[in-house]
């Protein structure tokens, strides 16, 4: 293999993973070690003779305190990390379920029926993805005030569902397109109603597609910040908003806890990325590129 290529790969791989490695290291440090003037990156403490020498050394004593402290609220906050993680899970999972269900149904409709204006509808659905959340947040905020949906789980679930629908519809339409019509036609000939055909024939065939779509919708809701921060700023807060709110904390930003919390927050995403790695290209390009 060309040494230049090898060099490029190695350099880029290190650059890509080093921040993540630093994240992992930070999560096993004490607070003082994270802001010490001398960066500490060797998790093996030697018994340094003086405090000064310990300050100068690149070694630190690893500890799992940060992870243990996650179940205690940070100074001045009403709940601990797991409460906010719970919010993220509830909002993420429910909005994903709703988006995938509605998206599959809708994708099937566009795929199998020659509806007038399909292209325009699909364009409209896609364009909702291009809108910067902040451009839309103002009227949504006012609307939510009428229905008392600010700072509720339901409010964000509704919003994320509609937000993810564009992704869900495009992806599922692509997946449903790939299912041969022969299966449905056989079922219809057998006297199944459309709805039953959909449930009995299409859904099982599209289940991989639904899972993949579900993963992407979940990741999108999990990571969303713009709406979460403006609509749910003191109740039903999700983890990204919680972490952002720890900036400027009175007792100093609790870096080890943030790092530990991030490791836990990020773990499901990493897991899902690995699970759908074969469909990653399709998912991030809205189903326009199928590998």
């Amino acid at each position, binding site marked *: 293999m060309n040494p230049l290529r090898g060099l490029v790969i190695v350099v880029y791989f290190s650059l890509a993973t080093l921040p993540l490695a630093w994240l992992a290291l930070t999560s096993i440090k004490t607070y003082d070690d994270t802001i010490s003037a001398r960066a500490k990156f060797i998790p093996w403490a030697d018994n340094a003779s003086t405090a000064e020498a310990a300050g100068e050394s690149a070694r630190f004593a690893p500890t799992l305190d940060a992870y243990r402290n996650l179940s205690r609220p940070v100074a001045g906050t009403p709940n601990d990390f797991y409460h906010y993680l719970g919010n993220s899970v509830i909002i993420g999972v429910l909005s994903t379920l709703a988006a995938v269900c509605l998206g599959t149904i809708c994708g099937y409709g566009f795929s199998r029926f020659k509806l007038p204006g399909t292209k325009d509808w699909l364009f409209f659905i896609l*364009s909702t*993805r291009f809108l*910067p959340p902040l451009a839309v947040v103002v009227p949504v905020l006012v609307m939510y005030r009428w229905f008392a949906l600010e700072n509720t789980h339901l409010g964000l679930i509704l919003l994320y569902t*509609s937000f993810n629908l564009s992704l869900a519809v495009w992806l599922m339409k692509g997946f449903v397109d790939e299912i041969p019509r022969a299966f449905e036609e056989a079922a219809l000939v057998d006297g199944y109603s459309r709805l039953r055909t959909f449930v009995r024939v299409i859904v099982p065939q599209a289940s991989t597609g639904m899972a993949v779509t579900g993963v992407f919708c979940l990741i999108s809701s999990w990571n969303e*910040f713009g709406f979460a921060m403006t609509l749910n700023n003191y109740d039903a807060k999700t983890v990204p908003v919680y972490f952002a709110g720890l900036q400027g904390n009175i007792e100093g930003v609790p870096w080890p806890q943030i790092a530990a919390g991030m490791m836990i927050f990020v773990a499901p995403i990493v897991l899902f990325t690995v699970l759908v790695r074969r469909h990653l290209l399709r998912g991030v390009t809205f189903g326009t590129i199928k590998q």
Partner: protein
Amino acid sequence: MGWGFVLPALILLLAMNLFPLIFNIYLSFTNADLSGGLVKSVGARNYTVLFGDARYANALSTTALFVVASVSIELVLGFALALALRDRVPGKPVILTVLLIPMMLCPVVLSLFWNLILNANYGVLNQFLGFAHLPQPQWLTDDDLKLVSILLVDVWMWTPFMMLISLAGLNAIPKYIYEAAEIDRASRFMVFRTITLPMCAPLLGLAVLLRATDALKQFDLVMAITGPNDASTQTLSTRIYQVVFRDYKVGLGSAYGVVILVAVIAVATIFVRYIDGLNKRQGKAEA
């Protein structure tokens, strides 16, 4: 019949997207305030204020600069990386999957963490630079460098996206074309310029469009790294945040929203035409 399947999703989308946009237009002609109070019509005053405001022009240029810089850097780096990874590499599946992780992570949460790395006082990046006897810039406070810091995080996160699509493009080039070029004894550079690049171009174009539309929305990174009120990094989205949630001017914020909406529709139209063109070309190629 088909409408039955399609309607639920469409109704939800219309309610959550179309209605707010119309309402946005209405609000942009009023003096609505975030803290409530009487809403009065003020004609087109919000628009005259908007277009006359130097900060609007600044936000526009900052956003444009950010989009162009981030997309081009990511394209070059991603494509180079794809070139390096296209053939057999030991452990390729693992390497690929690991490389793709940064783009799936939460931007806000990561930027908060990058603040720790880029901190001028105790950040590990500056310590590393000092160790190598290189200058230690103040990433987060130096005016010229704040946008660079944001670019740095964005490039770190999204280069894998470009790499993924470039790989797809590169892998789609049939081997026999390269074999024919070899028979013709074309130089490596010629091959790259006349075969590789043009055949990848459509997918690369798609990648650029996708990334550009995402970069236009940039909000999370700016909020976490410099805050919304920083002149050197204020993008359109953070400008709206400042106007609505700090200055409490809902009417003016809606005017910004309408302006952005027009831009977004333009971009979306280009995007859809491009995809159509791609599909047609694929159809022709297969025919």
